[in-house]
Structure formats: C-alpha cells, structure tokens
C-alpha cells in the first residue's frame, strides 16, 4: 500500500475527568474514503478538531504527507491542504455565496496581503469559485447572502468551500446532516468522485451514505477505536451493532 | 462707540457652577455701570471645559463675531490654548481667572492681562502664612498636573519649615482614604491641600469623617462660595488664602456682594469677584480709549483706574496683579457658609515670573 497521507499516532485529549480521545491511531490513504463512526459524544469531532489544529492534543503525533504538523497552527495546516467542513455550518454570513467561496480560494493560494486589485474582478478568484459552487449544487445562488440561505443550502456552501481549498485531504464532519434526501444523494455522488482528488475522512451518522461510500470504517466509542474494517466487517461486528448501529446494520 | 467682548466660559458639565459665577459677576458689573455698561456687547459661549472647543470658539469670536476683547476662561489648560490664539490674532485677552506661569514669564504678551492672581499666588501666601505662624512640619498635597505642581512649588517658595511629605494625587480622584492615612501617620502639624472642584468637596468631607484633627489650610478657591454649600459645616474654621473675601471692607465690594446676593440669591465666589473686576477694568479703559487704538487701550488698561472689589489693585510689569493676599476662615453668616478675613499673608505681592517677561 502507498504511504498514508494523514497518519495519527497515539492521540490523547482529556477535558477534566473525561478522556475524549483515548490513544487513537488512524491512517488515511490516498484515494480512500475512511469513515469514522461512533455514538454521540464518542469524540469524533474532537478528533477532527485536533487534526486541523483547532485544539491541542495532550499526547500523540500527527503526520501529514510525511511531515509532523503538531506545531503548526490551524491556518498553516489549512494551507498545507487539510480542508474541513464543520458539523454546525460555519460560513461568512454577510458575504454572498460567491464571496464565501472566493475567500476559500484566496486562502488556499495564500495571497491575502494584496491591497490593490478589487477582489470581485479578480478572475483567478471568481472563476474557480463559480466552478466549485456549481459542483456543490448551488448554481444560481452565487449572489445570495449566506445568512439567508436555508439550512440545507448552507451545508452545500460548506462543501463548496471545502472543495475550493483544493485540499490534499478532506475532513468532513457530518456533511450529510440537514441535506435532505435529494441533497444527500447528490452529495454522495460528489464525494464518491472526490476521492480520486484527495482522500476523505468522513464523520457521518447517515449510514446509507457511509455504507455506500466508505472503503474502510473505523468505529470510535468513548474515545477509543474499537474496530476498523470494511463495510461488511463492520456491519457484522456485534459490538458495533449493539453500541451504535442498532437495527440499521 | 462700544466694545464687543467674547466671554468664553464653562456652562455645561461639572464646572458649570464656576462658569455661572463668572458670567453673573461680569454681567452684574455691566448692569451696575448703567449706560456705560450698555456700550459693552457680550458674546457668550460654552467651552465645555475642553481646550480644543475653547480655541475654536475663540477663533469664531475673532473671525466671525469680530470681538475686540476676550475673557472668561476658568481653567489654565484652556487658557494656554486660547490666550496665544487670541493675542496672536491681535485681540486683547483679560483673564478673569487662570493665569498660568507660562503666560506670566517668558510667554507674556502686551495684549494679555491677568485681572485675577498669578496661579502661584494663593499657594505662596499659604506658605508665607504657615511660616509666619511658626508651623514647623507641613504635609502638602495637590493633584498631579501643572497647576498642582505649580501650587506645591508656590507653597514651598515661601515656606521655611519642614515639608514632611509631598503627595501628588490623581486628577479627578474622588477617594482620599490613602492620603488621609498618610496624613495621619505623617506627624505633620498642619496640612496644605490644593484640590479644586469636586475633588475638594470629596476630600473635605472624607477628612471630616476620618477623625484626623490636624488643621487644614488651602488656597481660597478650594473653599470658595461655589462649593462651600456642598461641603457643609465640615468646612467651618478651615483657613485659606485669598486676595478677596465677601467681607472685605470697601464700598465697591459692599455694593458688589449685596448686589450679587440680591440678584442671584447666593454669596458670590472669588470667580464672580474677579469677573466683576474684569468688567470694571474694561469699562475704565473704554472711558479713555478704544481697542481700535491698541497702544492707547493697553495703556488705559495698565493704569487700572477702577474701583476694585479688592480695594487697592495694580499691575506689575508683566501685566499681572500686584495686590494683598489675605488669610480667610470659613464661617457661617446669616445661615450661609462664607469666608471672613482673619489676617494678611502677603502685601503688595506680584509674582515670581515677572523678571522673565520681556515686553
């Protein structure tokens, strides 16, 4: 197998008495969708926050494309190509959809300290932005302010921004939530194509999507990975069925 | 023909009481002068106690209202802004209160007269009085800004005993527990304090509550009639130094104090007295010359031939007063608090900066 793009070893994070991430090790290989599932409060979002540098782990090491990134801050990690989406939509409310995605393009190319040229007539920003908006299924909404989007539309904008970062790896925290049936179907298709561009670490409670997309699944319970395996293996795992899947296995 | 006067003083905010005294004193003099007073047209503006506002008003009065003479500023820092602007544009400035040292010494100007007292005077007099009285150990205290620094310097200029502690408080400070504790522990025989306005009210009330019984002495405007009612009986008996008092025995002063009480229902403060004198000085000069002839007008002002409420009054070479400075004591008269004269601290006092003035 190729070298992992993202490699986590022995990650540990406690909040007071609660150990939210307990000695987690995990790899993300090129071309794969690696789903991370587990009960509510298992520590999935906390793990993602540590990978992107929003919170600091107590112990452990994260490598990204062979480089140890433990000391980099969140913005630097994003510029290396770690893109994330938020569990609760996080967009720039007073920007239009287009400006939101332009911001992501600008952030990705790293040239923020340009004071002169009007951003809206900068085609190196607008063209990629329009492309990603269309890709995420938001065509026609470019000029709408993000604050007036419906919940589901905002989720799509979130995806468009992640795409615009042209990342080396995606970390998606419940992208399907709030999407609606149609949206979920579209997004499943988008993600499926995306894995050839960059591998995806997918946190999701929508099992239809997980089973349709995942190449491998890891199951996190109380901060520990209790199983990793193919879709079939995980579906068959009695422990996972009991603690997480219930009837949906 | 008449003279147009720009009266810039503080008519809003915490300092408005003093401004009201300045305005009322000035207007009373014009009223008492009858027809002569009608020759004076007054343009009145509120400086909000802000130097930038004051200087802009001065510009306006000079450029748009075409005033001949400016007056009325209470605070030194505003005077420092306005006086150079006024004299620089060829207008007379008659100070009815503030007279900072910078304008008495090298910064003196032919068009600028102080009709009040040089800022240091009352403090100097307090020092002289304390020395004369044989006070050997003094605790002295003032806010930490130029007027405060000048005040302690002025006190020390004539004080021959030992200063056991020299304390600078914060401008605008309202709680004096820490200073009162230092006073109690200092072993001083008396305390000299300079705390203008609200700071003074707060200090005096807290001092009275503290149980410390070391006598206080202050400059007159820390115990002037505009704040005495707010301090209350706690002020009775406190000594202070001033070039004027409500009970100064001369006809001009009697007329003034009675007229003021009749018109406004309160005792005048020294600010009112100075404004009253300023107006009378102006009227005396108008009788001899017109501001359109600056040389003559200046000479007429310098002669100071008017009936001052202070009795004798004259200008020194830097156009600052030469006058007697008295020791006063706060008392209750007709149920109201005011000051009475108990002695003279200095006679014919000029100021320490006159030599530096080259005109």
């Amino acid at each position, binding site marked *: 197998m190729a070298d992992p793009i993202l490699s986590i070893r022995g990650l540990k994070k406690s909040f007071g008495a609660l150990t939210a991430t307990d000695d987690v090790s995990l790899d993300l290989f090129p071309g794969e969708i690696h789903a991370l599932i587990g009960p509510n409060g298992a520590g999935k979002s906390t793990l993602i926050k540590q990978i992107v540098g929003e919170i600091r782990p107590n112990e452990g090491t994260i490598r990204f494309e062979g480089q140890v990134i433990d000391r980099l801050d969140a913005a630097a990690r994003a510029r290396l190509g770690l893109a994330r989406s938020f569990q609760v939509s996080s967009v720039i409310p007073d920007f239009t959809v287009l400006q939101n995605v332009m911001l992501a393009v600008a952030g990705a190319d790293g040239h923020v300290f340009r004071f002169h040229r009007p951003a809206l007539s900068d085609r190196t920003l607008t063209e990629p932005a329009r492309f990603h908006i269309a890709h995420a299924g938001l065509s026609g909404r470019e000029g709408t302010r993000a604050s007036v989007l*419906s*919940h589901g539309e905002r989720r799509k904008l979130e995806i468009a921004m992640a795409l615009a970062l042209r990342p080396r790896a995606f970390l998606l925290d*419940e992208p399907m939530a709030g999407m*609606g*049936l149609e949206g979920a179907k579209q997004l499943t298709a988008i993600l499926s194509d995306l894995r050839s561009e960059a591998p995806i670490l997918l946190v999701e409670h929508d099992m239809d999507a997980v089973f349709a997309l995942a190449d491998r699944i890891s199951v996190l319970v109380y901060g520990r990975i209790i199983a990793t395996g193919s879709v079939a293996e995980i579906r068959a795992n009695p422990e996972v069925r009991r603690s997480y899947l219930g009837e949906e296995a | 023909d008449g003279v147009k006067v720009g009266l810039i003083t503080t008519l809003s905010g915490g300092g408005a009481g003093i401004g009201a005294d300045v305005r009322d004193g000035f207007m009373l003099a014009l009223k008492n002068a009858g027809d002569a007073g009608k020759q004076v047209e007054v343009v009145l503006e509120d400086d909000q106690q802000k130097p930038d506002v004051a200087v802009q008003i001065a510009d306006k009065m000079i450029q748009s209202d075409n005033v001949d003479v400016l007056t009325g500023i209470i605070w030194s820092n505003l005077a420092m802004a306005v006086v150079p602007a006024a004299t620089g544009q060829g207008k007379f400035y008659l100070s009815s209160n503030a007279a900072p040292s910078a304008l008495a010494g090298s910064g003196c100007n032919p068009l600028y007269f102080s009709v009040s007292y040089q800022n240091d005077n009352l403090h100097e007099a307090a020092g002289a009085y304390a020395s004369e009285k044989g006070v050997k150990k003094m605790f002295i205290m003032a806010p930490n800004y130029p007027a405060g620094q000048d005040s302690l310097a002025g006190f020390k200029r004539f004080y021959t005993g030992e200063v056991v502690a020299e304390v600078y408080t914060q401008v605008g400070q309202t709680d004096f527990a820490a200073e009162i504790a230092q006073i109690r522990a200092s072993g001083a025989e008396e305390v000299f304090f300079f705390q203008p306005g609200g700071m003074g009210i707060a200090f005096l009330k807290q001092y009275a509550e503290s149980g410390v019984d070391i006598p206080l002495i202050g400059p007159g405007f820390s115990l002037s009639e505009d704040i005495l009612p707010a301090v209350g009986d706690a002020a009775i008996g406190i000594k202070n130094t001033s070039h004027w008092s409500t009970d100064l025995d001369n006809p001009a002063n009697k007329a003034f104090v009675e007229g003021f009480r009749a018109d406004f229902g309160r005792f005048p403060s020294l600010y009112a007295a100075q404004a009253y004198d300023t107006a009378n000085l102006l009227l005396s000069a108008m009788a001899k010359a017109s501001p359109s002839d600056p040389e003559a007008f200046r000479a007429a002002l310098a002669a100071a031939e008017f009936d001052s409420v202070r009795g004798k009054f004259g200008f020194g070479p830097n156009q600052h007063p030469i006058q007697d400075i008295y020791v006063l004591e706060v008392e209750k008269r007709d149920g109201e608090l005011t000051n009475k004269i108990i002695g003279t601290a200095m006679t014919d006092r000029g100021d320490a900066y006159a030599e530096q003035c080259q005109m």
Partner: protein
Amino acid sequence: MSAFLELDGVTASYGTVQALFGVSLRLDEGRVLALMGRNGMGKTTTIRCISRLLPHKGGTIRFRSSNLAGLNAPRVARLGIGLVPEGRRCFAPLTVAENLTVAARPGPWDIPRVVRLFPRLGERMGQVSRTLSGGEQQMLAIGRALMTNPKLLVLDEATEGLAPVVRQEIWEGVRRLKAEGLSILVVDKSLKELASVADSAVVLERGQTVWTGGLEDLTPEMADRWLGV
C-alpha cells in the same frame, strides 16, 4: 370538530423576500403530521410562523381555537407548543441542567424522565452546553422542549446528527408520546421512519402546500418530484 392546529393560506416574508406563498395544513389532536419538501422550500419558515418567531403576512393560523395572529412568541409557547428548532440552539453558556430548567413548566416531564430518555445527558448535567457534542446538543434541545410539557411538539430535523441507535430511540419515543396523546409536527428526512409514525403528510414546494394526504399515498413519482428521491 375544529382542528388542533390549522394553517390556511399562510404567507410570510423575510424583509422584502417572500418565502411562503400559501401554506395550508391541518393537524388534529393526538396526531402526527409530517411536513416535507426539499431544501429551502419553506418548512422551517412555516414552523417559525407557527411559533411566532416570524409574524406571517396573510392567511390564518389557529392553535387550540386561538387565532395566533396577535400573539407573541412566549404567549404561543405557553399555549402549549414545544419547539425543537432547526440547528439545536441550546443556550451555549448554560449547563445542561440549566438548559433543561430554564423554561420548564409543571407536568409529567421532569429531569429524571428526560434523563431516562437520554441517559447521556445525565452524565453531562453540569457541563456547559457549548462544549457538548453535536448529538448531545440535539438530545438537549429535545429534552428542553419536553420540559415545557407541551401539548404540541414541533420537531424540526430533530434527529439530525444522532447516532442510528439514538435515532431509533427517538422514533420509539415519538411513538410513545403519540400514544400518550401528544400532538406532533415533524420535519425529517427519513421517509421510512416518518411513514411509521405520521398519520398524514404535507409537502411544500416553493413556499406552497402542493400535496396533503397519508404517507402511504405518496407515489414514487411524487416523491421524486417533490423530495428528490
């Protein structure tokens, strides 16, 4: 019999942008009604009108035979509407226990009962809700609405972000609540689960009611046209 909750030709706008163009629906006491439609079609807006977070422009809204037009949000809530809003909206700086008690009104639902429904909340009672996991916040939002002991429970995507087992428990709970006589208005994307609890459904398309009926009558073509399945 007059309906428990009835909307008739309701229109509403956000500023100058109209979002509802005529929503009608009817929910009888003790029943469950599913409100469906694609993203941005006006489901949440309809719910905001019912709970008076957005005053409607035209049409009428009646709840337990009161016309809601002149009432403010707190009044309507006290008439017995318990809202689980889209996006949870827990009070971030308050603890779990405080979130639960803040708007509690007397009735069968109390903290022990909520904890029996969501044991996870019991473990996190003293934690400020800002730091709860997404699913825990969702549980809290539901618990908070139940603590008001409503007569009508309004669930706007209340199972979003919940683990499958918990989601199943919620549906189980909904069935139990229905059995206890509570009326429920529910927005959710899981057709299967809705079919098992909802007595009827309303489909919105561009801010308008386009279909009303039993879920079993929703043909695959209709579902494809209006819901994109």
